[in-house]
């Protein structure tokens, strides 16, 4: 049987209301790295609607607990970060590899090129990974990362954040992002966060979650990640009309 385009899922195009532009002068490093030409539309064929399903990736028992990867416990506020990975129709993205990395409580990464005068923590690597379950759920135990200075502009500090990398279930869904913490006073001067359209910025901020907070142990935070979903299911066509969906997609260019 020959595949035709109508057999394949159609992922909604990425919309400019949700994502930062590549050319963002306030973030110095974009200057020589953003393409000058507008991207061309790539038809979504088999290579694009499939992707690596690494759900059976061998995970170590401590991969999702960043506080137990060394002989002792890391310094810092112990936290549980959890949530769901969903597509934009609300369907769980199950079995997808989720990788995180972060600075320690003093704002220092365990990386040879991070040399600012804040100590490394011998008990903290700042790296974790997990695979979402059937409901798209994930959870990490870690410590709250510190803010850190960088040289983008005078007295520049990155708000505390955890890097997230998600493979999704299709090449179209690949997402790398950062999760921020509520009420951080450093947001106003951060060009990386503020490159995202204002209305979309709150989607990068986790919520304090008292139900997940473990008594006498760890504070809980909840953060859901929404990846692009498909627009071509018969169910949706009945609800809203396939023509409308197509029109939406074209408007987003």
């Amino acid at each position, binding site marked *: 049987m020959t595949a035709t385009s109508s057999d394949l899922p159609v992922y909604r195009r990425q919309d400019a209301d949700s994502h930062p532009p590549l050319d*963002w002068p306030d973030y110095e490093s974009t200057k*020589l790295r953003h393409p000058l030409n507008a991207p061309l539309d790539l038809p979504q064929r088999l290579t694009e609607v499939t992707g690596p399903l*690494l759900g059976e990736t061998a995970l170590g028992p401590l991969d999702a607990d960043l506080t137990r990867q060394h002989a002792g416990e890391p310094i810092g506020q112990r936290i549980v970060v959890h949530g769901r990975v969903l597509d934009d129709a609300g369907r769980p993205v199950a079995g997808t590899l989720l990788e995180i990395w972060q600075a320690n409580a003093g704002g220092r990464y365990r*990386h040879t090129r991070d040399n600012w005068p804040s100590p490394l923590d011998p008990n903290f690597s700042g790296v974790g990974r997990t695979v979402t379950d059937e409901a798209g759920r994930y959870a990490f135990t870690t410590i709250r990362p510190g803010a850190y200075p960088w040289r983008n502009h005078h007295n520049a500090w990155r708000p505390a954040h955890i890097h997230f990398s998600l493979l999704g279930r299709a090449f179209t869904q690949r997402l790398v992002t950062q999760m921020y913490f509520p009420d951080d006073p450093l947001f106003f001067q951060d060009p990386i966060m503020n490159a995202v359209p204002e209305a979309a910025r709150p989607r990068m901020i986790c919520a304090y979650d008292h139900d997940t907070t473990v008594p006498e142990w760890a504070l809980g935070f909840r953060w859901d*990640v*929404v990846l692009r979903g498909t627009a071509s299911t018969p169910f949706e066509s009945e609800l809203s009309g396939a023509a409308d969906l197509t029109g939406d997609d074209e408007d987003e260019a």
Partner: protein
Amino acid sequence: MRLLHTPSQTVGPYLSIALRGEHWPYAVPVGTPGAFWLRGRVLDGAGETIPDALVETWQADPRGRFDHPDDTRGAQPPEVPGFRGFGRSETLDGEYAIHTVKPGRVPDGAGGLQAPHLDVTILARGLLDRLVTRVYFADEAAANAEDPVLAALDPALRERLVATPSDDGYRLDLVLQGDRETVFFRV
């Protein structure tokens, strides 16, 4: 009702602490018949080599099949033992390097076949969102001539997506900005 998408953010300068791993460059295992290295530099708008980028590749197996439920011909476990189809490489040494095999041709959705290709994601400090491109192969001239994605491009741009044979495989530099800028896609 639609949920709103989580915004993209840069991978930042310290991606290697999490996204590096000795196994990641191997889309196919060592010893796979026909395996080769795809290599190249990632260059910025000043022509400088970018040492803190991450290049990821995704491709069909040599039959042009995907071990994935959305392959409408049916998910097929790989014929090549250990075939993952996904490779990931840092550019710390000045180049990315992916160990893989040439993919088979994949239907183009209109009754024809696409030329053998890899889909590529580029992530780096200074990239607020990923860049997407494709890699084709110079020794597939006949297939390339029939490929609808290449055909839609200005002829002068096509060669920027085509890897050329090298000592141990193929080479293609990825140029983020400037006169020789790679063709990037919105997927």
